[in-house]
């Protein structure tokens, strides 16, 4: 891997390479360039997951022609696909080195420690939503109980916007979550459940199920489960698999004509 990166940088196939390096004992994202080739031996694959593709998006916004290389797990790759589709990154300028993935429903035997499910505390099991629940299990609660359980989770929100700020596929210049006509300001928790549901709706056709939002949530709200459900609906109605389908998302249509016929639910 290190030799490959060195070769890419030396031959100018990439101008920068985003990987990880241990700094002050912490595995941190690091930008390798031609000028620090001697540090390439310190390039590592870190257990900690940062959204390297979000950094690439920020860099590419200011340096349009820059060729960027990065380490990718499956989640990074899915995020890249979405960013290509939404024209946030140019696939011609991106080169990736795939690395082993986290253990998940999609892939067993990965090495990312962050997504190993932690058992939910008993209060969450009793009145909230267990973050490790499958979409189907979460749907087994009766309607009233289900909304109560979700409201318990939502009222813990401290409105840090961490879920949005860390999201690799959140790139809008104006965010509905900050739109005062849509969501009231000045209160903690924010207006629930609308705050979380607005974000959930916007994750339809966008969310690539990387779980970074849930990782960053100080209130342990099961956001990943919520967005999984949203994208299950997108899959069932539009037959669109976010992150792996190569076409435009069904929510990217301009104009007044609806071309896709939704299936009856």
């Amino acid at each position, binding site marked *: 891997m290190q030799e490959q990166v060195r070769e890419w940088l030396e031959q100018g196939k990439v101008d920068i390479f985003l990987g990880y390096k241990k700094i002050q004992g912490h595995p941190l*994202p690091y*930008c390798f360039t031609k000028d620090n080739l001697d540090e390439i031996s310190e390039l590592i694959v870190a257990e*900690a997951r940062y959204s390297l593709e979000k950094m690439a998006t920020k860099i590419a916004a200011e340096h349009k022609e820059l060729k960027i290389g990065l380490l990718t797990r499956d989640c990074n790759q899915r995020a890249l696909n979405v960013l290509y589709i939404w024209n946030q990154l140019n696939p011609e300028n991106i080169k990736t080195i795939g690395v082993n993935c986290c253990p998940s429903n999609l892939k067993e035997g990965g090495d990312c420690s962050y997504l190993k499910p932690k058992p939910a505390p008993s209060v969450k099991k009793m009145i909230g939503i267990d973050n490790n629940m499958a979409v189907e299990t979460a749907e087994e609660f009766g309607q009233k109980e289900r909304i109560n359980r979700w409201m318990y989770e939502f009222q813990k929100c401290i409105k840090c916007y961490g879920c949005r700020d860390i999201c690799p596929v959140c790139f809008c210049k104006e965010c509905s979550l900050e739109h005062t006509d849509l969501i009231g300001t000045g209160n903690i928790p924010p207006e629930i459940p609308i705050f979380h549901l607005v974000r959930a709706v916007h994750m339809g056709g966008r969310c690539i199920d990387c779980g970074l939002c849930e990782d960053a949530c100080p209130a342990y709200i099961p956001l990943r489960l919520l967005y999984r459900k949203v994208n299950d609906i997108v899959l069932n109605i539009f037959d669109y698999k976010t992150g792996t389908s190569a076409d435009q998302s069904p929510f990217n249509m301009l104009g007044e004509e609806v071309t896709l016929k939704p299936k009856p639910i």
Partner: protein
Amino acid sequence: MDFKLIPSTCSYCGTGCGVLFQVMDGRLIDTLPMKTHPVNEGKLCIKGWNLHEHVISDKRLKSPMIKKDGELQESSWDEAIRVTADKFKSIINEHGPDSVGVLASAKITNEENYLAQKFARAVIGTNNVDHCARL
């Protein structure tokens, strides 16, 4: 093109969350939580997420200000410290040391807080020391 991530500690309160500053071409552009930091484990509050904004804010004070002729004017540190020391002296001479109080802060370090109370007790001569968390 220069892109760096600089590990640091959040300066907003005394918790000490680990943050990463994203610096592009010498400009601070964003803040991220440090995933492996034992204090915050990859999480931040809204203040931590927006740390970079108070660094790059136009409203940020970059030099001390002294009120002259009813208006705040920029000055040098030497002058500002001189003026403050003189005013303290005259207040203490006139009204006694207990007319001064020191409010320490959650945004400074443990050592700086120690110095603040030492300053109050040993230099000014008062036990009027308190902390912003109790205000």
